[in-house]
C-alpha cells in the first residue's frame, strides 16, 4: 500500500516497588549471614525444598520444619547466556546453572563462575551436567540472592 510513513512515540515507564518477603523468605536470607542455605521439609511428602517455603505446593500443607542443606551440589543443567536485554543482572557472556544441592529434592538456580573464558570448546571441557559445584559467598552479605556470588566447579 502506498501511504505516508507513520510515526512512533518514544517513552519509558519507571515505577518503584517494594516487594514483601514474608517471614519464610526473610529467615531464609537471614541465614545467609552464616553462609547457611536452608530448606523446609514437607511432613507429608518428605521433600526438602530450597529455598525454604512456607507451604508444600503438592501437598498444600504448611512446611515449618527447617533443614540446612549443603552449599554444594550437582549441576542438573546449565546455559551460556550470550545476548543482552534490559535489566540484565550482569554483562553477557555468563553462565546460569540449575543445581541440585546436597540434601534438597529440587533444583536451585544461580550463576556458575570462576571460568577463564567463555569459548564454547573450553566451556564444554570445564562444565558437565552431573559435575559437582560449590557456593562462593560474598564477604559482605546483605540478605539477597547475590550474597552467593556464584557456584564454582569443585572437581
Amino acid at each position, binding site marked *: 500500500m502506498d501511504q505516508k510513513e507513520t510515526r512512533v512515540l518514544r517513552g519509558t*515507564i519507571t515505577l518503584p516497588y517494594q516487594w514483601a518477603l514474608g517471614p519464610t523468605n526473610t529467615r531464609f536470607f537471614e541465614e545467609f549471614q552464616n553462609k547457611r542455605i536452608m530448606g523446609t521439609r514437607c511432613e507429608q511428602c518428605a521433600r526438602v525444598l530450597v529455598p525454604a517455603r512456607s507451604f508444600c505446593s503438592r501437598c498444600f500443607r504448611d512446611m515449618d520444619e527447617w533443614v540446612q542443606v549443603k552449599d554444594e551440589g550437582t549441576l542438573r543443567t546449565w546455559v551460556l547466556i550470550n545476548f543482552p536485554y*534490559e535489566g540484565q543482572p550482569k554483562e553477557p557472556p555468563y553462565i546460569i546453572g*540449575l543445581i541440585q544441592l546436597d540434601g534438597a529434592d529440587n533444583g536451585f538456580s544461580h550463576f556458575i563462575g570462576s571460568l577463564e573464558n567463555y569459548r564454547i570448546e573450553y566451556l564444554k571441557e570445564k562444565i558437565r551436567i552431573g559435575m559437582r559445584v560449590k557456593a562462593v559467598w560474598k564477604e559482605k552479605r546483605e540478605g539477597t*540472592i547475590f550474597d552467593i556470588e556464584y557456584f564454582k566447579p569443585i572437581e
Partner: protein
Amino acid sequence: MARPVAIVGTGQTRCGKRLDVSYPELIREAVVAALEDAAISFADIQAVVTGSMPPPMEGVNGPHLYWADAMGAIGKPVIRVATCGSTGVSIAQAAFYHVASGLFNVVLAIGAEKMYEGEPQGTMSTVADPFFQRPFLAGAPGIFALQCNEYIHYYGLPEERVREAAALISVRNHNAALNNPYAHIKTRISVEDVLRSRVIAYPVRLLDVCPSSDGACALILASQDAAKRLPGLPVWVKGIGYCGEEHFFGDSEKVRWQSAIQSAKNAYRMAGIINPRKELDVAEVYNPFTFQELLFYECFGFGDEGKGCELVEKGVVMDGGDLPCDPSGGVLCTNPIGATGLQRVAEVVLQIQGKAGAHQIDGVQTGLAHAMGGMDQFNGIMILGKTI
C-alpha cells in the same frame, strides 16, 4: 454436560514489524478478517475473550481496555486471560468454555502482541519472582536453553545428533513459512546455516530461536445451532487439556515434562484418541526453540521417550510424513506471543477446512494445536476435528 463447540471463522494479520498500525488497529485487522471468514457481523458476537503477554511488553497496562473498541466489545462481556506463551490456547479454551457452558452462542477470541514496541526479553525476565529467580531467568532463551541442555544429556544422546535433528526442524519450519502468507521470517536456510549460526544461549543458536513479532489472530467460536446457520465448514473442538506446574523452575522435571504429558493425555481422553501418531493428521506444536519440539513429540506420545530425534530423522514429523508438524512454519518463524497459541489453533482449523492454501496438507480430519508458557510452567492442547 458441555455442548459441542465449533470454530467457524479465523482471522490472522500479516506478522512481522507492524509499526504501520497502532495496537488497536492491529487487533481490528484480525477481528474483521475473522468476521468476514465466518460471514457474520460484529453485532452477532455475544462475548469477547482476549489476551496477551504481561502488559509491560507494550507499556499499555490494560490492553483489553485499550482494545475494547477494536474488538467490537461495546455492551458485551470482556475478559482477559494471560498465561504467557500459552495465552493463545488459554484464550481459545476460555472462549470454548463460554460456548460449551450454554451461556453464549457466538464468541470472539482474540490475541495479539506488538513486540517491536517494547523490550521483550526484559519484560519476560520480570515474569519471575523478584527474590530468587529473576536474575537467573534471562528471558525466554535462558530458561528454555536450560531445558534443552538437560534434554540432550538426559537420555545420553550424542549432542551432535540432537543438534542436527533440531537443525532439520529449523529448516523444515523455515521452508514451510515461505508458503504461509502471514508468517514473519521468510528465509531459505540450510542445516549448515543453523549449526553455524551465532550462539544466543548455548546450546541454542540464532536459527534455533523464534523471532519477536507483531501480529494478531482471532477466532469465532459457535454453538452447534449457530454454526448450522453459517455458510462455512465448522471445525469441532474435540478435546482440550491444560496443565500448570510450580513457579520455581527447579521444582519439577522438565524433560519428561509433566504439564505437557498431562495436558495431552487429558485432551486425548476427551477426544477419544488412543494412538495420537495414527489418529492425528497434523500437529501445530509450539516451538519457539527447535530443541523443545523434540521433547514435546515425546511428551505428546508421537514417539517413545528419548526418541524425538528418530521422528525427525525418519521423516515422521516432516513434510509428507505420517504426522507432519508445523506446516505453517510454526512459532519458530512467527511469534507475536499473545496471538501465537491462537495461530496454532487457527492453522489446524484451516488445514481441516482445506483452506491452508500453499501449505495445505491433503485429507486432514483431525489435528492438534499446542502452546506452552511461563518459566516452563504451563502447557495447553486443543484437538480439532472435521466431525462433531
